[in-house]
Every structure is written in C-alpha cells, then in structure tokens.
C-alpha cells in the first residue's frame, strides 16, 4: 500500500465527512414534522431549588424565538418558553443555531408550539461515518465485512421485533430464541465462511447457550425469583419475565459466539499445522484458549449491562434510597443478565473444545 494512495483515501474520507455534515445539518426538508431553528435566546434569572433530601439545584426559564425551516410554514417565526435545570435530567438548555422538532398548534388564531425533541441526526450520522471511515482505513474491505454482518443482523432483528408486535404471541420468548439461532448461523457464515469450522462453532454455540439458559431459568425458578424485580424492566410493554429472558438470550449470544469462534479457529489452525495432534491435546489446547478469554469477555458484558443503570441508580441514591433497595430495583436485572451470560461463556469453553477434539481426531482439517 503506497503512502500516496493512503493520503488520497484520507482526503476523500474527510471530504465525504464534510459533505455529510453539511447535508445532515440541512436535511430538514426530509422530515414531515416541523423543525425550527433557534434564532434568539433570552434567559431569565435562575431560581434556586432544594428538595426534601437537601439536593440543591437551579432552574432557568428561557424565551426562545424560532424560525420554521421546513414544510408549509417555512420562514414563519414563533416564540416559546423552555425551562431547563442545571442538572438536566429531563430537560436541556437551547442555544442559538440549534434545530428542534416542534409540535405546532393554533391558540386563538395565534401560532404557538412546544418543542417535542432536539434534532440529533447529524451527530449520529457523523459517528457512523467515523466508524466506517476508521474501519476502512485500518482494515480495508475486511473491516467492512464485519460491519456488513452486523448490519444484516440488525435488519433481521428488526424484522423479528416487528413480527413480535404484529402477531403478539403469548410465548414470544421462542420467537427471539429462533432469531438467536438465525443470528448465530448468519454471523458465522459471513465471518468464517460456509465450512466445517462454521458447523462445529454453530453446534457448540447452540449447546452452550441452551445449557446456560436452562441453568439460568432453573436457578431463577428454584429460588422463586427471590429479589428479582421483573416489574423494574425498562419500557416493558409485554410480559416482563419473558422479555427479560429474550433479552438475555440475545445478549448472551454475542459473547458465546466470540468465545467459541476463538477456540474453534485456534484448534482448526492447530490441526492444520500439526495433523498428528491427539484428541486429548486438542481438548487441552482449547481449554487453554478458553481460560485466557473467559475473564475479559465476562467483563465486557458486565460493563455493557452495568453502565446502562448508572443514571437511574444515581437518581435512586440521591432521593434517599438504601444501597440494597437501589441494587435490587435499579441494577438487579442487569446483574442477573450478566451472570447468566457469564455462565454461557464458561460452558461454551469445554463444549467447543470437546466437539472440536471429537470432530478433528483422526480426520484432516480442511
């Protein structure tokens, strides 16, 4: 790869970024909902507040003048008030130049509006551009293939979610369990290819995941869901226990997929370089790979599930709740999910090692 070509690639990427930024900050015409741009801001004096737990805060009222920049009312200006707090848990301060979605209504012949939400598409698209750009620069087409597998899985995921909503199954857990099997197969075929290695990985993932879910559900039932508050599940619109289990199965899958492909690809490589290796040695080497990745992988999931609970946990603590109560209601489900996933990661290590050693012993890997 010549330096000159890399330089040209970087310049093209940067230019495309600029074009994308310009486009997404001027894409109001694509939306049906009215969008306003803040053209004037006047802040009132902040008001000090204090609640029953001696939390001091500040709220400020601002008068905003907005110009509508799309739709049939393009060019009209409207005035509205917005209140924001210093902490900003559920509100935000607006500045000149920002764009917001509006809900317009007529009040005695006069046009008024409330802000429905802030326009964030520019930033989301710019981050996406950054990821694609970095992937291309560092890994070229191989990196983009990884992204493709994620994109395809995302589309399938959305189709399954839509199916769940449309058909409203009573046992919708099975719907997501099937989707998990599909995700596994597709990711493996896209990343590894259509071969024996994929087959062995697929089997070990399915066995590992099933065992982990069976153990997880078994323990939850044996202990009578003691201390588990399914009703604390965010955004639950369906039976929360099943929703939790469906979420766990999908979350667990990624990590199990990661662990098992690491083991299986190492063992296949080993067999290729040392065709006479014994089944026992293969099993041992598989365990060795597994031991090294087990801890870090469980930590990845712990971080993902735990970090999500930060905001709500702080809210619980600041309003006088105890550690135990906060743990049970704000963090319990995330921790349970991470634990079941950990069990899955641990179980897939012997499963993948055993299946590989059976499959590869006496046979040639190709």
């Amino acid at each position, binding site marked *: 790869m010549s330096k000159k070509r890399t330089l040209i690639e970087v310049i093209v990427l940067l230019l495309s970024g600029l074009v994308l930024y310009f486009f997404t900050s001027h894409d109001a015409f694509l*939306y*049906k909902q009215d969008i306003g741009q803040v053209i004037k801001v006047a802040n009132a004096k902040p008001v000090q507040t204090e*609640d029953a737990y001696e*939390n001091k805060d500040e709220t400020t009222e601002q008068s905003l003048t907005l110009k509508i920049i799309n739709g049939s009312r393009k060019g009209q200006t409207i005035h509205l008030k917005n209140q924001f707090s210093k*902490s*900003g*848990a*559920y509100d935000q301060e607006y500045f000149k130049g920002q764009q917001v*979605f509006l809900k317009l209504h007529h009040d005695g012949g006069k046009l008024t509006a409330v802000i429905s*939400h*802030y326009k*964030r598409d520019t930033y*989301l698209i710019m*981050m*996406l551009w*950054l*990821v694609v750009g970095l992937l291309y620069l*560092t890994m070229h087409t191989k990196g983009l293939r*990884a992204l493709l597998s*994620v994109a395809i*899985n995302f589309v399938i995921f959305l189709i399954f979610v839509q199916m769940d909503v449309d058909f409203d199954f009573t046992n919708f857990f099975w719907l997501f369990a099937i989707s998990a099997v599909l995700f596994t197969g597709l990711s493996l075929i896209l990343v590894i290819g259509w071969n024996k290695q994929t087959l062995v990985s697929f089997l070990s993932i399915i066995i590992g995941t099933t065992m982990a879910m069976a153990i997880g559900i078994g*323990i939850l039932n044996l*202990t009578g869901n003691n*201390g588990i508050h399914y009703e604390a599940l*965010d*955004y639950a*619109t369906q039976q929360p226990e099943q929703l939790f289990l*469906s*979420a766990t199965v*999908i*979350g667990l899958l*990624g*990590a199990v*997929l*990661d662990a098992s*492909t690491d083991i299986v690809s190492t063992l296949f490589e080993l067999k290729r370089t040392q065709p006479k290796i014994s089944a026992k040695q293969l099993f041992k080497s598989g*365990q060795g790979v597994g*031991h090294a990745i*087990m*801890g*870090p992988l469980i*930590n*990845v999931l*712990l*971080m*993902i*599930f735990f*970090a*999500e609970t*930060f*905001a709500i946990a*702080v*809210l619980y603590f*600041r309003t006088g709740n105890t*550690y135990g109560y906060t743990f049970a209601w704000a963090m319990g489900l995330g921790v349970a999910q991470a*634990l*079941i996933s950990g*069990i899955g990661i*641990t179980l897939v290590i*012997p499963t993948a090692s055993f299946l590989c050693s059976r499959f590869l012993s006496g046979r040639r890997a190709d």
Partner: protein
Amino acid sequence: MPSILALTIVLAVLMMIFGGKQGTSSFFSVLLNFGILFVTVILISSGFPPLLVSLFAGICILATTIYMGNNDDRSTNIAFEATIIVLVVMIIMIVPMDHWAQIKGFSTEQSDEIEAFNLLIGINFEKLAISTAILSTLGAISEAAIAISSGLQEIIDQNPDITKKKLYQSGSNIGSQIMGMTFNTLFFGMFGSDLALFVLLAKVHAGIGYCINAKIFVSECMLVLYSAVAVICVIVITTFLMARRLEKQQKAAAKAKKQESN
C-alpha cells in the same frame, strides 16, 4: 436464597471447574470490577466530580481486567499502556460529542419509570452520561488489547527476527478477526439490553425519522459506536506499541552482537 446470590455461586463454581486456577482469578476480577463500578456510582451520587471518579475507576478496571488472569508481563504491559492511551482519546472524543448530541439523562420513553422522582437532584447528568459512555467501552478495549498483544507476542516468540512490516501485517490480520467478533459481541449486547425498547418503539410505530433523533435511541447507538471506535483505536495502538518495542529489542540485540564480534 436470593436468586442473584445463587447465580453468582453457580458462576463461581463453573469458572473454577472449567477455568482452573485462571478461572478463579478471573472470577475475582469480575467481582472486583463490579465492586469498583458500584463504588463509582456511590461516589458520584455523593457529589464527587463524575469525570474524575470515572477516570480513576476506569484505570482501576483496566488494571484489574488486564493483569488478573493474564500472567505474561510482556503482553500485559503493552496492553495496559495501549488501553490507557485509548481511554484518554475516548475522553477527548466523548466530552464534546455528548454535549453536541445532548444525550444526557432520561428520555420521554422512560417517563413512567421516573415520574415518581423529583429530578432536580443537583447532579450534572451530562457529565454522568459521559462517565457511563467511557466506562461501558472499557470491557471491550481491554479484551481487544489483550487478544492482540498476546497474539502478536506469540508470533514474535515463534519468529524473533520478524520485520516490522510483517508484524504490522499480522496485527492487521489478527485485528480484523478480533474486530469482527467484538462488533458482534457489542451489537448483540446492545440488542439484548435494549430489546424492550425496540419492541416499544415498534409498538408506537416510531419511524426511522423519529428514532435517529430520539434521545434514547441515539444515546444507545452512540454507546456502541464509541465502543467500536475505541476497539479500532486500541488495535492500531497496541500493534504500533508492539512493533516499536520489537524494533528497540532487535536494535539492542544487533548492537550486542556487534560488540561481541568486536
């Protein structure tokens, strides 16, 4: 017995059976990280500056994850160095990005959950969102850093005279495999933890135009995208650091040889 305790015990037993000695120390690293995260939330809630607390907690978590359960100093030191650099890069990226995108606090979709609370609690939710974003990337970067540094160390051990260019080539090969799988882990982790949200959005017929601007959807996507950038950075930086050290060692070895022949 509380279900969470039972699950923890089963996980510990399984990790000890199937993970041996390393399994035990891995289990304690997970436990320790949980403890660090819990203390972090408590410290932030009691009014300590969120960013500083998270930076400190982040370094502790990286050290725990990398050094506990991995014994090869040659690869762990480089992995730790690389993750610290990426931690700094992430802070520089996330602080302005979170401010521009305004993805702090709670969203409309969460209103049921928080309506019982008084929200004026005097904690800066923007800084809290930044802390969340930084901490959630740590698991993925430490895993990738360890995987790539131990992989490259293995290659150097097999072939100590490998050229810098070849090492970069290997780094890119191993890196792309790790990246593919880490992306899957991250995305499935996200689909998994946000399944209920996706179902809700589908139920209210939220269109794509709403989603890509909604606080909750954008903030969840941003978390995954930040992690993706962090993983790419950590792979590049780890490979670079390994190559730099290899070059130094090869030069030192060549010098020693020269002196010997003199």
